[in-house]
Structure formats: structure tokens, C-alpha cells
């Protein structure tokens, strides 16, 4: 199989056809006879004791079938390990509380559930529930929350969840050897995932007494957590994942599942629960805000000598994935650079705000903004070209990160940087107050879960009697082409056209479990599992065919629904004849494979060292911007993305990830910010929370570097999350190039740009 027939081809996805004709049934598009509608009552205050909850009026309202509070939840609180299959210690555990009990910790925390005959009745019932709150002092800033006298978010527990450190060499010595040192503090905001499809699901009890939840999720394996909430055996809860209308990490944690299960169990009837957009923004997780203090030193010739960073992330009111996100930041904090002396300290801290968890990039984009701004500051101070200073310091294959992890696969940064910078072309010209700037930033992001999580994925491939192929894999497709990539892999290995392959996904009862659609892991993990399963079927077919054709199986290949003898006469045998012969001999025409990622156990919990990830994806963004010095408005004129994707299984899907990631990162750089006042979100709509529109996107160029040296199938690397990483710093560095002043806080609103310009003009 040297020349690919299906792999590497920009083939339209099967799910895209269904979506184009309006045939895809998203979570909210599904209904059942006799279905009730669920609603959630949420706290409007960020920190208070619940003195009493009176549900009697709501219960008496005609059409109301259930009103539930914490006392009705069989297991309202559980210590969750958030999907770990391998216990790694207390610091990675958090409290999962279904409904607030006795007190609320953030505005938006769920307090009560209602199921009623119509959505309107359910909503009216919410208004009839009386909750008596006694306000308590809250803490809304992570730095304040670290003080010993700060109010405790979870009573009896410290606000600091975790402290980690990365230590390499001796930073003091490193700084003493530096010719220049730059030290700055960077801040990044709360960010919403803003998927177009709000959270939704329908639950019912099937004829076997199993609670079935059909839901928009990135993680069907929350069925275990939901079963624990109900105190049911895990095999009594089944989750069916729908095609997801966007996830970006926001549908990684449980959303509506437990609520639905509780309501359907209480009423015995199907229940639908769909969040409004406002509720979605008010209640689901956010990207972590960070305060990052960086000190970076270099020699005159541009060689980095030392980097010290202090990271503080705001976890919000519940732990969720905050320790993991911080751990990603720790590994990424020094960037893809060779630095002899590094020290990174990181804290993640509870506050009385919306909880923070996974968001595309998972802790990598925050630190990338800081380390790439620092590189630009150093370049300016040393009068070295921003491309050159990076090239002097980029890590190469075989070298190690500050944590000691050796980069065993291709690091294509020199090439991505040259190609991205070159693709900007001729520099545009400014006019009057419009100043033009151009600059770059590079980034790295892991793909695949942390190795101490012992990640696995399963996939099933079978061939039917007519030669068509079925895949069963418990993957969730969140729009990245997760399902169709598996179809391409199988079509390639089994030599059938793509239309002969049918895939069933995301059902905890019927598809082998393939793990989460998170951590840019599906192509890597389930792609490899599916490749193994397809090869299992291929082996059976070729062995049988070699008997029938009386030639060595190594000479045979599968293509165009035939078995081909690649040597000699080029004789062929039809695939269906071989399938029939296999069936008649009782040979298995199916294969279930399990792919196991490399594993390693964490040796020291607080000190992050050694191998943490299976591999990384590297790349560069280059941007041209126009800055209006009078208004502070930043317009991105051109944005070039060049990332090493290893092998593009489907270039259409890969480009889609890179382009979507570029604009996701542009929003992070320029407009997106969830604003809060004393813990209450003030931007609960898309007229206040500003996503890039078609009018805001610049000319974009996507350059795929294909090193073929990833750990995914056919040498693929992951690209879903990495594509976001270096966009915001590239834009910020370009703005700095345009106006000679730097903004240290994202997003780069006109107000902030004008402010730094005024400060610059004052100091001359």
C-alpha cells in the first residue's frame, strides 16, 4: 500500500451530505411520545447559604410532574476522577455535585429541577420555587483567593487546589549569564466555547428498564458517573451520543445528563432538556483566565539562557479539569525552545465564579500568548529579527523539553516559520492614522491524553457478505470529521470505495468504547484502533485468498473490491468470492481492536518531569494587521497558518480544523471575553459576547506541513486544538510591530490599544 487511494484525498464527508440536506437529527431535534420538558433552577447569587427551598407551589401547578432538589438525588456528591481509568492521586480529583445543597458557590449553580408537560409550564414552575438565601462573602479574584484570610469557596477546604513546579537547572544562574532580561505580567480572560448548538438531550427508560440518554456530548462515557448519581449499576445507564453541534471542550464535562436521568427516573416518562443560549453561557465551563508573570533572559546573540514563570489560573467554584489544564500549561510554559535554566510555578485556585475546564487548547494557548510575547520583546531589545531569534532557539527532534521529555518525533518549526512568514507576501502600506504591522508566533500543543492516564480506544470492523463494511466505534463526532476519518482509514486498508463503508458511533451499549472526543485524541487513538481492526479483517481475507489463488499472501493486495496478485499476471479475485469462502469456512470477518497509548506513571505529584504526552504538534502563525492609532481598532488583514499535521488523512477536514482554529484564536486575541461583576456573568448573549463574524475574518492562507512523523495512523499528528495555539500572540506581536507598544492583556480591545498608545506617547 504505497500509493493511497483514499487516505490523503479531500473527500467530502458522509455527515456533511446529511447536514446539507437537513437530515441530521441533533439532540434537540429528537422527541418521543409522552415526552416531558425539563428545566433547571439556577442560583442568581455567587455565594450564599440556602436557608430553605419551598417547592410546594411549583408542585401544585397543573402539568408539573416532578420538582427535585438535592435531597431527591440518590448520590448528590461524588468524588470524581474525571474519566481516569487509572487512579493517580488526590490532586486530580474533584467534587461533582449535582444540585446545590445548603449553599451555593457560584451564580448559575443548579439548585432544583422541574419536569412538566410543556416547556412553558416548566418555566413557570421554576418561578414558583422559593429559595431563601443568606448571602455570604465571596472571592472573585484568584490572587485574592490565595490569601490565607480569603473566604473559602468550599467550606473547610483550601482555595488553592494544586501547586506544580517544573525545574530545570538553576534559573538564578541562568539570569546571571543573561545579557538582556525581559519581565512582564500577562492576563487572559474567561472565554466561552460558543458552540452553535446549546446543550440538549432526551432521556427515557427502555423496555429493559435501562435509562437511555440521547445527548450532545464529547464524552458518552459519563454513563458511569450518571449511574453513580442514581446509585445504579453502570450497565443500567446507556448514553447515545448525537452528532454534536460543536464542542470545543465545553461538552466534555457532564451537562444535562444527570438532570435528565433523575427526571425520567422520577416520572417514568421521556424528558427533554435543552438550554437556552443564555443558560448555556451562564452555566457551562469557561476557558481558564490566567495571570502569568514571565521573566526571560538571553545572550546578545539571541540564545535563551533562562525562563521563569509564575502561573495562576482561576478554577472557578468547582475543580473539574483545572489541575489537568494547569499541568498542560506547565509542560508548555517554556514553549518549544531550548532553554538551559527553567523554573515554572503554577497554582490553580477556587473562586466564587463559573467553573473553568476544558476549552480548545487546554492550557496551551494561555502560556503561548505569554512566551511568544516574551520572545518578541527579546527580539526587539536585541534588535534581532523575530524569525531569527526563534530559529536560534527552537528545539529539534531528539532534544528535550524543560520537563525532560525528549521530542522523539518531527519538530518542524523552522519550516513552518519560514513558510508562514514568507506567505504574507508584500507588506501592505498604512495611511494616516492606520499603521501596519506584521509578525509571527509559534506554538506547540500535545495530542493524546497524558500518558499516566493509561488511555485506550476500541474499534470494531466487519465485512458483510456483499463486501460492504461496518465500523462500530464509540467515538463522538463533534464536527471535526471524527467519524468519516475512520471510514477513510478502513476503505484504504480493505480496498473498497468510501461509499461501501458505514459507521455506527457513540453508543455505550452497542459500540466498543473509544474514549472521549477531547485532547485531540480521536484520530490518534481511535484511528490507530480502527487501523488495527481493519488490518485484522484484511489478514483473514488475504490468507483465504492466498489459498484460493495459490500464491503467497504477501503478494496480494486489496483494491477496488478485488484481491490483486501484485506480481506475475496481476490476477484478481472478487472480494465477495473471498468473503463467501471465509463465511463457509467459519472464519471471522470481523475484528475488534484495542489501541493502548504508551503509558508511564507519575513519579512525583507536584514536580512535573519526564514523559507526559505521547507527542506534540508544532507550527506557526503569521499575521498582517492594520491598527487605527486614533480609535485603537485592530483589523487583521492576513493570517497565515502553517502547522505540521504529520499526514493529512482528509485535507478538507484538516484545513477546516486549521482555518476554524485560526478564527477561534483570532476571537481570543481581539474580542472574546466573558465579563463578570462580583461573580455574575454580564455577557450572556452573542450581542455581548463577541464572536468573529464573516465580516471580521481576514484573508487566510492555510499551509499544511506533512512530515509523516506523527504517532497517529499513517503518521498523522493531531491538529484540532493545536491550530488555535499561536494565533493570539501572532496578532498581538503584529500590533506591537505596527504601533510600537504592547498590550499585555487579552483581548486587544480598542480601549486597551488606545491606552498603551497614550502611555507610549507620554513617555515618548
Amino acid at each position, binding site marked *: 500500500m504505497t500509493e493511497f487511494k483514499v487516505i490523503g484525498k*479531500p473527500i*467530502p*464527508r458522509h*455527515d*456533511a*451530505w*446529511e*447536514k*446539507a*440536506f*437537513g*437530515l*441530521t*437529527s*441533533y439532540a*434537540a431535534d429528537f422527541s418521543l411520545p409522552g415526552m416531558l420538558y425539563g428545566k433547571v433552577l439556577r442560583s442568581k447569587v455567587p455565594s450564599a447559604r440556602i436557608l430553605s427551598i419551598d417547592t410546594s407551589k411549583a408542585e401544585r*401547578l*397543573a*402539568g408539573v410532574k416532578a420538582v427535585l432538589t438535592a435531597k431527591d438525588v440518590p448520590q448528590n456528591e461524588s468524588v470524581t476522577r474525571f474519566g481516569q481509568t487509572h487512579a493517580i492521586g488526590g490532586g486530580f480529583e474533584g467534587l461533582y455535585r449535582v444540585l446545590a445543597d445548603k449553599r451555593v458557590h457560584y451564580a448559575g449553580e443548579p439548585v432544583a429541577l422541574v419536569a412538566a408537560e410543556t416547556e412553558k*409550564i416548566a418555566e*413557570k414552575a421554576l418561578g414558583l420555587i422559593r429559595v431563601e438565601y443568606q448571602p455570604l462573602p465571596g472571592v472573585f479574584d484568584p490572587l485574592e483567593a490565595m490569601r490565607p484570610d480569603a473566604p473559602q469557596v468550599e467550606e473547610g477546604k483550601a482555595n488553592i487546589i494544586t501547586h506544580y513546579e517544573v525545574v530545570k537547572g538553576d534559573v538564578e544562574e541562568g539570569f546571571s549569564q543573561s545579557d538582556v532580561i525581559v519581565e512582564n505580567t500577562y492576563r487572559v480572560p474567561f472565554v466561552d*466555547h*460558543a*458552540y*452553535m*448548538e*446549546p446543550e440538549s438531550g432526551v432521556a427515557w427508560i427502555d423496555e429493559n428498564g435501562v435509562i437511555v440518554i440521547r445527548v450532545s456530548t464529547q464524552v458518552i462515557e459519563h454513563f458511569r458517573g450518571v449511574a453513580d448519581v442514581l446509585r445504579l449499576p453502570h450497565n443500567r445507564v446507556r448514553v447515545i451520543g448525537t*452528532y*454534536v*453541534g*460543536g*464542542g*470545543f471542550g465545553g461538552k466534555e464535562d457532564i451537562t444535562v445528563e444527570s438532570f435528565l436521568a433523575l427526571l425520567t427516573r422520577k416520572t417514568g416518562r421521556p424528558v427533554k432538556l435543552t438550554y*437556552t*443560549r443564555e443558560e448555556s453561557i451562564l452555566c457551562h465551563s469557561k476557558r481558564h483566565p490566567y495571570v502569568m508573570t514571565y521573566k526571560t533572559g538571553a545572550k546578545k546573540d539571541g540564545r535563551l539562557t533562562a525562563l521563569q514563570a509564575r502561573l495562576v489560573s482561576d478554577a472557578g467554584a468547582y475543580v473539574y479539569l483545572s489541575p489537568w489544564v494547569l499541568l498542560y500549561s506547565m509542560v508548555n510554559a517554556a514553549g518549544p525552545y531550548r532553554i538551559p535554566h527553567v523554573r515554572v510555578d503554577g497554582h490553580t485556585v477556587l473562586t466564587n465564579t463559573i467553573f473553568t475546564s476544558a476549552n480548545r487548547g487546554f492550557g496551551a494557548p494561555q502560556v503561548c500568548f505569554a512566551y511568544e510575547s516574551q520572545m518578541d520583546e527579546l527580539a526587539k531589545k536585541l534588535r534581532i529579527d523575530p524569525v531569527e531569534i526563534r530559529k536560534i532557539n527552537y528545539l529539534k527532534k531528539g532534544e528535550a523539553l524543560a520537563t525532560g521529555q525528549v521530542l522523539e518525533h518531527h519538530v518542524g518549526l523552522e519550516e513552518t516559520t519560514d513558510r508562514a512568514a514568507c506567505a504574507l507576501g508584500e507588506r501592505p502600506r498604512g495611511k494616516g492614522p492606520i499603521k501596519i504591522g506584521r509578525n509571527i508566533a509559534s506554538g506547540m500543543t500535545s495530542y493524546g491524553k497524558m500518558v499516566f492516564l493509561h488511555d485506550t480506544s476500541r474499534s470494531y470492523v466487519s465485512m458483510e457478505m456483499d463486501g460492504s463494511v461496518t465500523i462500530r466505534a464509540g467515538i463522538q463526532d*463533534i*464536527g*471535526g*470529521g471524527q467519524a468519516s476519518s475512520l471510514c477513510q482509514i478502513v476503505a484504504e486498508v480493505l480496498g473498497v470505495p468510501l461509499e461501501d463503508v458505514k459507521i455506527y458511533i457513540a453508543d455505550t451499549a452497542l459500540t466498543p468504547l473509544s474514549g472521549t472526543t477531547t485532547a485531540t485524541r480521536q484520530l490518534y487513538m481511535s484511528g490507530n484502533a480502527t487501523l488495527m481492526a481493519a488490518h485484522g479483517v484484511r489478514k483473514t481475507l488475504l490468507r483465504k485468498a492466498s489459498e484460493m489463488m495459490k500464491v503467497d499472501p504477501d503478494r496480494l493486495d486489496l483494491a477496488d473490491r478485488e484481491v490483486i496478485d501484485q506480481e506475475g499476471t496481476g490476477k484478481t479475485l472478487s472480494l465477495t468470492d473471498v468473503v463467501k469462502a471465509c463465511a463457509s469456512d467459519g472464519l471471522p470477518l470481523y475484528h475488534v481492536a484495542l489501541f493502548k497509548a504508551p503509558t508511564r506513571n507519575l513519579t512525583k505529584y507536584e514536580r512535573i518531569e519526564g514523559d507526559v504526552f505521547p507527542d506534540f504538534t508544532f507550527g506557526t502563525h503569521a499575521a498582517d494587521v492594520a491598527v487605527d492609532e486614533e480609535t485603537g481598532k485592530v483589523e487583521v488583514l492576513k493570517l497565515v497558518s502553517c502547522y505540521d499535521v504529520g499526514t493529512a488523512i482528509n485535507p*478538507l*477536514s484538516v*484545513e*477546516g480544523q486549521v*482555518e*476554524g*482554529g*485560526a*478564527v*477561534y484564536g483570532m476571537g481570543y486575541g481581539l474580542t472574546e471575553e466573558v465579563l463578570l461583576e462580583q461573580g455574575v456573568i454580564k455577557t450572556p*448573549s*452573542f*450581542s455581548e459576547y463577541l*464572536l*468573529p*463574524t*464573516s*465580516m471580521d*475574518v481576514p484573508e*487566510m492562507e*492555510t499551509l499544511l506541513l506533512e512530515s509523516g512523523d506523527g504517532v497517529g495512523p499513517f503518521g498523522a499528528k493531531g491538529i484540532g486544538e493545536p491550530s488555535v495555539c499561536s494565533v493570539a500572540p501572532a496578532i498581538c506581536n503584529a500590533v506591537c510591530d505596527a504601533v510600537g507598544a504592547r498590550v499585555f492583556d487579552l483581548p486587544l480591545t480598542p480601549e486597551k490599544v488606545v491606552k498603551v498608545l497614550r502611555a507610549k506617547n507620554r513617555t515618548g
Partner: protein
Amino acid sequence: MKTLKTYPLELSVNGEWKKTEVSPEETLLHVLREKLGHNEVKEGCGKGDCGACAVLLDGKAVNACLTLALQAHRQKVVTLKGIGTQEKPHPLQESFVRRGAIQCGFCTAGMIVSAKALLDEKPDPTRDEIRRSISGNLCRCTGYKKIIEAIEEAARKLKRSR
């Protein structure tokens, strides 16, 4: 519970006349999805911010969440499914698929409706006109590039077939 008086509503959806009863505050989006089974029309925000629910109302693209059902009385509504089907796809649907303009697909119905309204009015739009025509349709997955290219391609194809 006090319920508002209902009124008869007649409207054509994708060429088929339908009759139903609606209350005055009911939106066209609610009627299409909950009463007439047109789930291809999506609700992304319910406030006119995202455009996922866009439909053609007498040829003009409107947000169904901001349109009262009774405003559509005796008028023609066209949804994504009225623009083209599997058997008879519209060039926009084909180009959206072939150009990779569909990822999660939740914005697709509204995008194609807005693009259809544009191409009906301006068969030969500039890139800027295309960008403007979908400026009320948010997409979080694609970065809009392939959507804009898909609309350009459909326009070319429609022009050739005329």
C-alpha cells in the same frame, strides 16, 4: 394557567400549504419546529444573534426566532429542505459539502438560506457581498473561509447553468 387566545395560521412551507392554530406570541421558529416538524431549522440563540434559524419568508431571509408566526400568515416559507433535497440538490448544498464548508453543521441551514437569498437577488455577487450576506450567521467551526468559497462556487455553477 391562563392561556392566550389562539388564531388560525395558514402558511406554505416548502411549497406545501399548512394550517395550524397559534397564539399571538408564538414565533415562526417554534411553529416550524414544534408544530410542523421542520427540525432542519435550528435554534442557536432565540434572539436573532446567530442566524441558525434563518428561513426565506416570501424570498427574503429572516430569523425565524424574531418573526411571529402570525407575520407569516398566508405567506411562503422556504427552509433548507425546500432549497434542495438528496434527490435534487441545490448547487449551494453540493458546494458546501464538496468545499468542506460543513463541520458540525449546526449553522449550515441558516448559512445556505442566507446564501440562497443573496444569489436569488444577485447572481454574480462579489466576495464582499457574500461576506455581508452571511454576516448575521455565526459559525464557530470553519472560520468562514470555506463557506465563502462554497457560495462563490455555487454562484459560478448557477451562472453556467442559466
